[in-house]
């Protein structure tokens, strides 16, 4: 919050001085000079492209990867067919700097880690291309700050404020429930990733942030470990989670008939849940603001007695406010059925 206030103060001081250009301080503390009016923005990776799509889809130069056919209905029609320009940062970077230059953005945006590696990458690209490059802190807890900061930079503060207030309300609603639930009464949750369900994220990793924020206790604890790890079947049996979450349809399709998983509490109690992934993952994939809908969904699954919600209405309002679409009844049916375990197809459709 302090940095935001400094930034606003800085902007107020500088605004009359520089009508065309202004200097902003990004989440990594870098001072970046940006043009007065920003028309086109290049998103450096999938998390940034989702943040940008939510806040200012009209300023997008393209997607990092083309949306899959099953994802397209949930992306506003005007933006479904934007070109795929590749990823500049993060896992498996594929964008070419010449592609970035050809798209001629006024700004390059990255959303996620603001560690030194990313700050120096931003500096390098900025020096090379002469295009201002800003980093926004992608920690889930900092979501409202990120929305307001980028909204201010892009000149879409009004929309940013509406979205930030929405996210703050979701956080507050969950905090009100969690206040009365001691830690040892919270459900023990295992995130099953990969086709065999034995990939998971450890406590504190970006992959399980949303589970912990929704009031679940992640059973994968490992001191000194970060990010994704492999677990063994025996560890899962020993941990005996009360809830298992996944978005892998292969795994979800097999887990109920699998003798190894049969004795696990979550399977016996029918508390294995499949997260929808359209247009973006509800709980991860990628770790961006798409997780806000998953946060509401998970909190409802973890605390069905304390948090009553109309998932259909929640979905409709979230998709309207953040994804700029008005899903039809049939499309809502698809999503709701998906969140209850009936995915539209057995495997994700290939990208085109």
């Amino acid at each position, binding site marked *: 919050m302090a940095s935001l206030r400094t930034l606003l103060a800085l902007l107020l001081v500088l605004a009359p001085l520089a009508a065309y250009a202004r200097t902003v301080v990004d989440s990594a503390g870098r001072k970046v000079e940006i043009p007065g009016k920003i028309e086109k923005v290049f998103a450096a990776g999938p998390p940034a492209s989702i943040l940008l799509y939510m806040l200012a889809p009209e300023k997008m130069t393209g997607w990092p990867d083309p949306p899959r056919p099953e994802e397209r209905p949930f992306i506003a029609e005007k933006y479904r067919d934007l070109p795929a320009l590749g990823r500049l940062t993060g896992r498996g970077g594929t964008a070419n700097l010449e592609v970035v230059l050809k798209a001629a953005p006024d700004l390059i945006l990255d959303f996620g880690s603001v560690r030194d590696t990313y700050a120096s990458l931003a500096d390098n690209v900025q020096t090379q291309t002469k295009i201002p490059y800003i980093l926004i802190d992608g920690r889930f807890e900092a979501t409202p700050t990120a929305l307001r900061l980028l909204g201010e930079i892009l000149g879409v503060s009004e929309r940013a404020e509406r979205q930030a207030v929405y996210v703050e309300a979701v956080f507050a609603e969950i905090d009100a429930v969690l206040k009365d639930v001691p830690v040892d009464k919270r459900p023990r949750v295992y995130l099953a990733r*990969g086709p065999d369900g034995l990939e998971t994220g450890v406590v504190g990793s970006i992959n399980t942030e949303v589970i912990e924020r929704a009031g679940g206790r992640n059973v994968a604890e490992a001191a000194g470990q970060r990010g994704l790890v492999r677990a063994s079947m025996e560890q899962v049996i020993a941990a005996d989670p009360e809830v298992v979450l996944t978005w892998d349809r292969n795994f979800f399709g097999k887990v109920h008939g699998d003798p190894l998983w049969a004795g696990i509490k979550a399977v016996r109690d029918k508390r294995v849940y499949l997260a929808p992934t359209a247009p973006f993952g509800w709980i991860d994939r990628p*770790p961006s603001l798409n997780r806000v809908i998953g946060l509401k969904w998970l909190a409802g699954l973890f605390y069905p007695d304390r948090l009553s919600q109309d998932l259909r209405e929640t979905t409709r309002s979230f998709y309207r406010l953040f994804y700029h679409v008005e899903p039809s009844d049939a499309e809502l049916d698809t999503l709701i059925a998906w969140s209850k375990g009936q995915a539209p197809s057995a495997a994700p459709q290939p990208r085109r």
Partner: protein
Amino acid sequence: MVEGTGAIRRTAAATLSDHRLAIAALAAGLCALMLAASLIGAYPISPGELVAAVGRRLAGAAPVGQIDTVLFEVRLPRVLAAVLGGAALAGAGAAYQTLFRNPLVSPDILGVSTGAGLGAVLGIFLSLPVFGIQLTAFAVGLATVALVYAVASVVHGRDPILVLVLAGVVVGSLAGAAISLLKILADPYDQLPAIVFWLLGSFSAIRRTEVWATLPMVLVGLLPLLLLRWRINVLSLGDEEAKALGVEAGRLRLGVIAAATLMTASVVAISGVIGWVGLVIPHIARMMVGPSFDRLLPTAMLLGGSYLLLVDTLARTMARIEVPIGILTAILGAPFFLWLLMRGREGWS
């Protein structure tokens, strides 16, 4: 060679029983390790509970809680898979090293692991279920070696072994490039981690059916190696000498390659890429019983089984999460191999 035969001649009878003793001791050690490994794990099972569970199993009584599942569906299959994997990789390594007359050869020399890696990565990329991924790994692993052999057999008039190795290097690096391409194209948040973990190797997802499916494959590969063990010895003398002794080197080589490849591919398909075992273990075996293939094969397989079981038990117990076994075998194998290099070539010939 002169020194070795001299030693054998000197105390022929004593050495023979020494070797039998060494092999028997290794077998006993492996059994002890398997028992110990069955008692260690994330899910606490005491020796008494182990005996009770085995008794229930034999009597056909109903399982009690999760103990029976952990023991018979998770832990024992994993112990067996590690032993089977280590034995197959070390056995294949011993066969390849004898065949190529070169101690730096490992089972991946003809690209079977890289090929299997490509198959698995393709399976993950296509969002196939686990069984489909294993099947593509197995098939592409075999196909890679077949391609290498086909390429090498087209080239005439050069040292056939050199040509095979070079073809293996070329096809292997092509497969490596294809893996990199698929990594770039894969979903970075979903498929890429699965690919990375597969390429690091692990027995963490092993189940009983996979052990039962892999065992006959390994045995089918092992059988010709056992039957041909004396002729394979002759191969290590070189093609000309083998011919003089009435062994047709080319055909025998094809047989050994096919057998060792089948063993390696069937293991790698369920475990992912595990390096160093097939390279280092045959060396230790050779230090113990000498280079003669008939003794080298069982010794290497017993040692390999014990070694991989030990490493896998470490991998599943040393931290609260799994340590990928490929990392451990490299950390343990590389320094040992350097030490071997510094000791010189004794024990090889």
